[in-house]
């Protein structure tokens, strides 16, 4: 891997950690067309946004939620007219593959009983996007008051998934994309799309972008061709 300056400097893409596999695949596809392969840096959306605020030499920001994109936009750090919402996702309730637990989203009391003395594993509702969506959905469905005190707040979605995979938590809330990727959990229920704000992944070229390829790669990410790739990993259209 080389980021050194050549005539065709590849774009540096800052992307939310949950996009790792799918964006990697999309970038390979893009490189196969004869472009230099983009440099992909995965971390939490919050960390990446703060790097942009502090002058990170990057070209594209691909966030897991609109909030941090809004923050950068407000500070004038996006190249005008390049912001687009390219992906959607949904959240699901999962349980360990081998467990018999059953829970229904339309029965708060039953949900609490299904949890038993265990905990509901989800990303931190105060901080991590997946957790925020989960909390919103639970509130809409009237389940939140039942489980509020029994939530295990993980650092990110994958950690929440791991707790269910290991059977440490009987139930968990993760993205559909995460559930699809794990062989150790099963989907108990899918949260209705209208129970939470839409889960959207915006992308934009940064104001300080220097790579000539930045705009073209951003356009590729929004194209039907790359959409096909993301679809394979469980993402939906926005």
């Amino acid at each position, binding site marked *: 891997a080389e980021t050194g300056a050549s005539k065709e400097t590849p774009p540096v893409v800052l992307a939310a950690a949950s996009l790792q596999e799918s964006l990697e695949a999309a970038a390979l596809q893009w490189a196969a067309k004869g472009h230099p392969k983009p440099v992909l840096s995965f971390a939490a959306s*919050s960390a990446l946004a703060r790097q942009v605020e502090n002058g990170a030499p990057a070209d594209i920001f691909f966030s897991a939620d609109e909030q941090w994109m809004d923050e950068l936009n407000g500070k004038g750090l996006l190249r005008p007219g390049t912001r687009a919402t390219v992906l959607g996702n949904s959240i699901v309730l999962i349980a360990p593959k081998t467990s018999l637990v059953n829970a229904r989203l339309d029965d708060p009391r039953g949900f609490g009983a299904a949890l038993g003395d265990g905990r509901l594993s989800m990303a*931190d509702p105060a901080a991590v996007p997946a957790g925020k969506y989960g909390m919103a959905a639970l509130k809409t469905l009237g389940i939140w008051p039942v489980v509020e005190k029994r939530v295990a707040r993980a650092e990110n979605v994958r*950690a929440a998934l791991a707790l269910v995979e*290991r*059977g440490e938590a009987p139930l968990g809330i993760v993205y559909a994309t995460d559930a699809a990727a794990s062989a150790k959990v099963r989907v108990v229920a899918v949260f209705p799309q209208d129970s939470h704000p839409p889960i959207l992944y915006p992308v934009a070229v940064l104001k300080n972008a220097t790579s000539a390829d930045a705009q073209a790669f951003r356009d590729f990410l929004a194209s039907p061709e790359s959409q096909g790739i993301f679809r394979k990993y469980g993402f939906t259209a926005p």
Partner: protein
Amino acid sequence: MALLSAAEWDVVVLSLKVSMVAMLASLPIAYALAWLLARKRFPGRMLLDAAVHLPLVLPPVVTGWLLLILFGRNGPVGSWLEDWFGVTLMFRWTGAALAAAVMALPLMVRAIRLSIEAVDRRLEQAARTLGAGPIRAFATITLPLTLPGILAGAVLGFARSIGEFGATITFVSNIPGQTRTLPLAIYSGLQIPGMDMEVARLAVISVILSLAALMLSEWLVRRSGGGRAHVL
């Protein structure tokens, strides 16, 4: 202006509890390991040395993940603890203390070991001729002479525990009142745009806590210091 909100106060108290327990519980273990590594030659010594350093070398998240596998309810040690002692670590403050202790251990062992290696063994011999058995000679000579290392280890361990984040959140997640220590609260704040002031407040609290620990340890060293100069 109230200095701390009730929720912040909870976080501070929990952090102190977790860090104190982690430090105090691992101090004797750290001492025993340091003593073994400093004084004994046995097969597997190098491996033990490496194992002690493990939590330092591995990214904290991996350590947390290993703790989860071992000490989770379904893990080999975790289920055994639960069956035999009724001790649960998962999602409890005890689990947070375990994570902090494991992360702090290598620092404590190194500091104590340096002190043990610096002890003049002829003094232990003198104690033996004066009628002290090996254990008493250890307790009255070696142990007090290694006090600087013990205090340095305690400070390092406490400070490291106060700052421990990755292993804790991976192992026992972030549960208010149980495992939500200062770093976890700070992390939550950092995830939200515009929370910089809250984060700064909590960070300052962390710093003050360990500054206090630092000053306490320096004071203890000074108090016992008169006798630690070099002598015939």
